[in-house]
């Protein structure tokens, strides 16, 4: 009895080159992303707490905690508020700034450089600067409001949860909005001018041109901008941590994950929380991308 050895299809030169070029990415992603992801997923079904002996299998207990514990649920809700506020501010403000920059022809590069500046700041530095601005005793914000007669006495901004959430979202959006601006500006610049000229000849108003031409044609860019805004807002950490510490008023899910993992040493709970955060990020991004893809299919 004989066996035929399987024959592998012979790859041509282009295919071999393609594989060779893709190999580093596959290896890096495998080692740094997919490997740890699978490992974390596996470990999240065990109790991994260095302070306790052994690592018994606990099934979905960590996921149940991550979805039922009142403190964790509050952190999820807070993160939801951050996402909503940050995405609205970044998209609305980013679109307005991109449209303005698109109109400007003189000195656009300098304006763009100025707009991009906050994005270049490390998030910790950004939060510390805003912390000085919001400082109740010597902060610029209290000073300006009192000088203009709008408030009397020093306001302690983070004593009120709603105000704290808005301020942290604003600080985060201030840093991240430039990315939205760049993405949308690039999309705007790809729209043929002839379309606007034709619309003008047909008597379309500025709003109609925005609604009928601009928004549909920048939709793919908008999807990318929305996705990145959402993912970064879901992962919001530095601003909330530096401006208001571990306060439950403004504690995001990533802060909760950090505290569970590195302060309380409940590593497997932290892994479960991290994976749920990743799933939430992917799910929301997928909704944006699929929706925009459906609306911009022209075939």
């Amino acid at each position, binding site marked *: 009895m004989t066996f035929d050895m399987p024959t592998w299809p012979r790859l041509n030169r282009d295919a071999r080159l393609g594989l060779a070029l893709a190999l580093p990415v596959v290896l890096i992603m495998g080692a740094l992303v997919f490997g740890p992801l699978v490992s974390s997923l596996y470990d999240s079904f065990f109790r991994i707490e*260095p302070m306790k002996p052994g690592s018994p299998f606990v099934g979905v207990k960590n996921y149940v905690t991550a979805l039922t514990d009142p403190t964790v649920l509050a952190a999820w809700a807070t993160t939801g508020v951050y996402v909503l506020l940050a995405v609205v501010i970044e998209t609305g403000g980013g679109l307005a700034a991109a449209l303005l920059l698109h109109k400007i022809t003189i000195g656009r590069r300098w304006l763009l450089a100025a707009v991009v500046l906050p994005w270049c700041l490390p998030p910790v530095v950004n939060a510390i600067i805003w912390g000085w601005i919001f400082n109740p005793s010597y902060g610029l914000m209290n000073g300006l409001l009192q000088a203009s007669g709008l408030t009397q006495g020093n306001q*302690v901004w983070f*004593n009120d949860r709603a105000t704290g959430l808005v301020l942290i979202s604003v600080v985060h959006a201030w840093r991240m909005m430039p990315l939205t601006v760049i993405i949308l500006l690039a999309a705007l610049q790809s729209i043929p001018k002839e379309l606007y000229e034709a619309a003008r000849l047909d008597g379309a108003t500025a709003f109609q041109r925005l609604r009928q031409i601009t928004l549909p044609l920048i939709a793919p860019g908008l999807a990318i901008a929305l996705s990145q805004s959402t993912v970064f807002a879901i992962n919001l950490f530095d601003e909330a941590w530096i401006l208001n*510490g571990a*306060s439950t*008023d403004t504690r995001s899910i990533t802060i909760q994950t950090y505290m569970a993992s590195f*302060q309380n*040493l409940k590593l497997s709970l932290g892994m479960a929380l991290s994976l749920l955060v990743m799933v939430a990020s992917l799910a929301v991004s997928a909704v944006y991308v699929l929706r925009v893809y459906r609306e911009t299919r022209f075939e």
Partner: protein
Amino acid sequence: MNRRAFLLTATALPLSFGFARLGHAATPLALLLPPWGTLTKDMTDKYTQDTGGTLNIETLGWDEIHTKIVTSMVANTAPATGTELDWSWVGQFGAAGWFDDLSALVPADVLADIPTAAIFTYDGKLLGVPYNNDFRVMIYNKAHLDAAGAAVPTTMDELLAAARAVKAKGASAYPIGLPLSASEGAATAWYLLTKAFGGDLFDKDFKPLFTTPDSAGFKAMQFEVDALKEGLIDPASTGLKDNAVQELFKAGKITFDLAGQAGILAVYTDPAKSTVAADAHAALVPNVSGKSRSFGLPEAVGMPVSAENKDQLATYLTWMLTPEVMVANYKTLGVLPTRLSVLAALGKDGSLREGEILAAQSAVAEPLFAQGTPGWYSEFSGAVQTALNAAAKGQIDVATAMTQIADAAAAAQQ
């Protein structure tokens, strides 16, 4: 010389020099310490002069050091040969088995001179050698009290009366300095006030002792909330950490640093660092029983089990514990010596600011947990921080805060 020979020589020469250097130069001792434990250049030079070794000190914030140790140890690597080990981490890191027993590295007579070493003993092992003898003491601005005609308070009622007098005279808008943010400094201040009101946090079985309105812990938090409402504590304190309160004291904005660090007096009384250097004085923590109480928050140097060059740490610890080095560190960094003999000598020659008060307060400074810091301290402390912060903001009342803390402590112990 042809091209190939030239290239070979050019490559080999630097490499041979490099390997030669590696072979002869001693590896610097890697240390991971907070800013207040980081030696000055003069001191690191002195270490080289005294021992022939060199130091490579990485300075990180206190919170960040904890995170770095956790992430490194989970990955079975050591962040440094010697690291900061706070009293509050002993239960956690001891249970995890992450630190070596150092008792063999310190002579018994020296160890006997360091009473706070007991706080770093877990399961019979000495996990850290104390270098900073921190405990809490009240620090006040004498000029403010003089302006108000108030005496140095010894009871909690006298403290309130003095604060009201200072505020009435306008010497300070918010005389009492206490951090109320969701931070460790706010929690430790509440622990101190619990002792000031004559109580403890837990009984011998770790059952909470602070849940009823007549308990010391309850009264302590009520005191903080009431003083805040009365305008004796800055409303901004709900966002202030302990280091921010220290800045307020140095700027002359507050009269009392109620939960002052013993070593910070060296900074408060330094004209180069403080605007109230001449007016900063220490007093025993006020109380309700006639006997002042405090608790120790010492810091130590520990050695992770996976550390390299372990033998070098023995040299460093021996050097660190010499009276000469301890005195120099107190004078330059404000790090209070952990050896009683050194502390006494400092007091005797007049180098120790408010030496008598510090010695008296040190004598009544207890460990926060008589049974040793439990592994669940971090979760408990986190609950204290958030509940205290919420109570100070008026979001919950003190009774609810106490219930939340007790529930969190019970959950953490399971």
